[in-house]
């Protein structure tokens, strides 16, 4: 039984990783072939980094992700504090509305936003992508910050005020530390969702602007070039290193807590 389980894990892992591994091997291939490896070469990496389009797309992707995550985190965290003060009925209505972008199919969200921009006559470009990304990130921030707010926070805050702290000071010293784990995970979640998004960006971008995802899509449509394999390799390695660092830090924190 144990052996069977190990074999099963192996098969699933091969299924998940062999395609990625193939791209990584082919990215170092000198020939353009998608099957035969001729000689080791780095020239697809050179091509990737010489492409102005790609560099622009990388800058757009990350600047949009950081800004969208920042906006979503601020709006979302404020929303958690605001919603908490409302009547349960209003609270439920708002939380239900908050769920819509998460449950909706991406293509519907994308089309809806595109129609909205067309209707109000805003030309599509960097700002419309940013607005759309913040829209789908806010719900995730609210979901991760809300559980951190509890009765205790309120009491400590009041106590701080009674003891003469200013509102700002009490907020900084009591509320923010209490909410912080939720805020930071909401920010990170938003950031990764934004970097990863293709469908909503596709419908809300203008003609002249690309993120990494939309650029990949338009290039794949013309014909696959090995420079995209090089890109895959880089993204994979960056993801691997980031996840290892996050895991390592978490393990360390867990051990400290224990």
């Amino acid at each position, binding site marked *: 039984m144990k052996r069977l389980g190990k074999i099963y894990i192996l098969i699933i892992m091969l299924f998940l990783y062999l395609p990625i591994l193939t791209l990584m091997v082919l990215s170092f291939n000198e020939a353009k072939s998608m099957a035969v490896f001729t000689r080791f070469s780095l020239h697809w990496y050179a091509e990737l980094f010489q492409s102005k389009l790609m560099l622009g797309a990388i800058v757009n992707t990350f600047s949009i992700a950081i800004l969208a995550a920042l906006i979503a985190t601020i709006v979302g965290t404020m929303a958690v*504090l605001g919603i908490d003060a*409302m009547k349960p009925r209003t609270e439920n209505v708002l939380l239900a*509305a908050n769920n*819509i972008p998460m449950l909706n199919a*991406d293509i519907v969200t994308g089309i*809806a936003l595109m129609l909205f921009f067309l209707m109000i006559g805003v030309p599509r470009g960097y700002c419309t992508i940013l607005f759309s990304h913040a829209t789908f990130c806010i719900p995730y921030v609210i979901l991760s910050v809300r559980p951190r707010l509890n009765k205790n926070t309120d009491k400590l805050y009041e106590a701080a005020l009674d003891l003469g702290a200013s509102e700002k000071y009490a907020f900084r010293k009591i509320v923010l530390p209490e909410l912080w784990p939720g805020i930071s995970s909401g920010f990170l979640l938003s950031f990764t969702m934004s970097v990863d998004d*293709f469908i909503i960006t596709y419908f809300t971008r203008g003609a002249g602007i690309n993120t990494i995802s939309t650029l*990949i899509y338009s290039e794949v449509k013309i014909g696959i070039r090995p420079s995209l394999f090089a890109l895959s390799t880089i*993204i*994979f390695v960056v993801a691997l290193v980031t996840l290892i660092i996050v895991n390592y830090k978490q393990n360390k924190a867990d051990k400290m807590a224990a």
Partner: protein
Amino acid sequence: MISRKRYATPFIVWIIAGTLIPLLSIAYYGFTARDGGFTFANITAMFQHDHMQALGLSLLLAFISTLVCLILAFPMAMILKDSKYGKQGFMIFVFILPMWMNFLLRTMAWQVLLERQGVINTLITMVGLPRQELMNTPGAIVLGMVYDFLPFMILPIYNTVSKIDNHLIEAAYDLGASRKKVYTSVILPLSVPGIVSGITMVFIPALTTFVISNMLGGGKINLIGNIIEQEFTVNSNWYLGSGLSLVMMLFIIVSMLFLRKFDKTGGESLI
């Protein structure tokens, strides 16, 4: 009180401008004719042969890929539950990592493997077999969907399965239940919330995708997502595109309500 109602104002404005008005504009365009009058034609257009065919194929392929994901994911989640704690962390890491890679690149990987001059065909011809047409088939699309969405099935199921108290399972065995009985009466009912959220996270993106079908179907196989996307980007017929989107949303809502009936916890384990 730290909480002040007015803190929620930016959020409320954002929900109205970013979610509610955009959704209403789909409804508006969906019921509007090109000349501006009210019409049902954009909705009933779903009954046209091409559109029905695309919708039928989307439902079928989404159903098959969801089923395949479920069949692959459940044993995986059970194996993970039984493995040692330290190893569990590593295994979850293994399933999360591919999710961090852009899904267009992951789909492209299968294009490279399945292409006429691709890796699999090269291997096939090397052993002396004739080349196979693997690309541009419904099978290729299902493969792409399973590959892209499998982690989204494994993780929620694992999350619920790992919380099942092992004492319950042992108690069932002690009371003389067979292996099969333990699965059907104890483990399966307790893992329903995870299965339901896994199905939601696979079925809806699979039903509405246009990217996977475009990349692995070579533009020859149209799913409902492709039809809608083309109405917006190629034909610029937002009225028809909106009408068809409304019908598609109906299918999403119906399938969600259907799934919710099974999940009494109300989708808490969605994330």
